[in-house]
């Protein structure tokens, strides 16, 4: 404790401001994991949970927690973090509060490829592999079309992306309407976002951490970019390379999220706004806070998705919206009420 207070005293005062919120969200993340491992068809006492977590003995609790609940919570957390981070970046990149990770068609491309794989009877890593390739094709398509001749403004990128996304949407509907009954349910679940049958891997955690590090270093430039291109350039930001980098990074994060969990809606759109409502638009706080809140929200949602109507499972995207809509409206109302009293 003594070292901590010493650290707190020597850190620059600007770093102290975000500390309470980040600590709180960190706590929330741990809480979400605790919720995820304690909920399910098998009930364990706290004592059983703790022994299962801390020791290596072969018990049912140990197997269920280490091989089922914890990996799933881990995937949910990473996915939520990726989506929230991608959402923050897309909103700055397009300078549009309605932007979400899917707005430029990354998930559309991934979905089309994934559904193709499913209708061909493939499963598991074949589906996620095709999703990743589909996402990549869509990213390159939008990038080259929007790049055109030099002029790389947000409006052109947004319109190009939205139109490509609409095209993918039509292709998805086409595949759904011609595919036989059997794979249809799996397809719909995939489209609504589903993390029930993936095995955890380290690569998306790696991508999330790399993304966090890069964007955290760019955070002050992002603050200035959101004040407009001209203002950013006159303050010495190299806007064009920054925009291209943001597009590629946000798309890559989205591609990894979609590949492992389908199109989980809502997280990428709403989480950044929630943090902005709580604590303002400084990206140095917004970025890590969004990742933590996005991750926690998805862990909570996924846990509920598997227990609410157990043994049946709900697609996690449904729950994120059910949880997120009222919470967001509450925050919005609170901040508006505050404004009236000023």
């Amino acid at each position, binding site marked *: 404790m003594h070292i901590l207070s010493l650290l707190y005293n020597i850190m*620059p*005062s*600007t*770093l102290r401001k975000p500390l309470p919120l980040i600590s709180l969200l960190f706590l929330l993340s741990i809480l979400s994991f605790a919720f995820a491992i304690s909920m399910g068809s098998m009930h364990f006492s706290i004592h059983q949970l703790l022994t299962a977590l801390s020791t290596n003995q072969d018990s049912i609790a140990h197997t269920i927690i280490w091989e089922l609940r914890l990996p799933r919570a881990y995937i949910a957390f990473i996915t939520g973090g990726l989506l929230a981070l991608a959402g923050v970046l897309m*909103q700055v990149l397009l*300078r*549009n*509060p309605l932007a979400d990770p899917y707005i430029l068609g990354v998930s559309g491309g991934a979905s089309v490829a994934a559904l193709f794989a499913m209708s061909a009877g493939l499963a598991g890593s074949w589906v996620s592999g095709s999703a990743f390739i589909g996402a990549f094709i869509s990213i390159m398509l939008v990038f080259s079309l929007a790049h055109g001749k030099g002029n790389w403004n947000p409006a052109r990128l947004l319109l190009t992306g939205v139109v490509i996304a609409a095209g993918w949407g039509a292709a998805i509907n086409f595949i759904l309407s011609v595919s036989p009954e059997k794979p249809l349910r799996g397809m719909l679940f995939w489209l609504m976002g589903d993390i029930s049958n993936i095995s955890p891997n380290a690569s998306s955690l790696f991508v999330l951490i790399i993304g966090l590090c890069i964007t955290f*270093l*760019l955070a*002050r*430039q992002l*603050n*200035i970019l*959101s*004040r*407009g291109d*001209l*203002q950013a*350039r*006159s*303050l*010495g*930001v*190299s806007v064009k390379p920054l925009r291209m980098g943001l597009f590629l990074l946000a798309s890559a994060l989205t591609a990894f999220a979609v590949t492992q969990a389908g199109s989980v809606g809502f997280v990428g759109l709403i989480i950044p706004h929630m943090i*902005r409502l709580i604590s*303002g*638009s*400084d990206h*140095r706080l917004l970025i890590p806070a969004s990742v933590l809140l996005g991750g926690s929200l998805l862990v909570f949602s996924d846990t509920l998705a598997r227990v609410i109507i157990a043994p049946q499972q709900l697609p996690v995207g449904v729950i994120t919206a059910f949880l997120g809509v009222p919470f967001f409206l509450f925050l919005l109302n609170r901040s508006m009420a505050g*404004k009236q009293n*000023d």
Partner: protein
Amino acid sequence: MTSLQTKALSISIGNKKVCENLDLSLQPGEIWGVMGRNGIGKTTLLHTLSGLRPPTSGEIFLNQKHIEQIPRKLVAQKLGLLLQHTEDVFPSSVLESVVSGRHPHISNWQWESESDYRLAYEALDKVQMKDLSHRPGNELSGGERQRVAIATLLTQNPDIFLLDEPNSHLDLHYQIDILQNLCEFASKEQRTIFMSLHDINLAARFCDKLLFISGDGKTKSGNADKLLNTKDLSELFQHPIHVTQGAERFIYTPA
């Protein structure tokens, strides 16, 4: 101390010519006014001079160095631009906006230090916005927003101030007060001001030198007292202008 020079600068937008073969030399301590009718290209000239837009032909030198060859961040340490429009999509406080002016002076991985915030508070004090420093930017009036933008530029603390209509949205008091402060600061600290203005009386009051842009690439530049005559002014604005002797200085009125 920094100088900004142009050699044979020509700018055109489509087939409209803003200036042709313009040779300008902005020296430390000088206060310049740019005048011309709406849409004649004053903003384009300011953006070109700050290196945000390539000229059609000719060269721009910042301290004898080609402005295009200097990294943007170094340019931003020497030269600041007040834009006509600012667009904040996401809410941020007045203080956050103003401290963003320090960006060119801090390396990317550093955070703003106490002294950066001190500079921001000083700048807010100069535009009389200190009490509003924690207000969200989107709750400000047009004039308050303009004062925040000016405070941001003061926090950037460049040697050359390019100002695009600095007095827009400002009430009578702030028009005089802020221009007065800026110009006194510039002559005391040997900074350069180059600003577009529509008000002849403000130009007469504050500028040493003037640049008239009259369209078709034609420009006139020189000492303010030489150019501020009824003939040149009436020609520039295509509107007859009268001069009368006021209590403290000449007064220019459109007919």
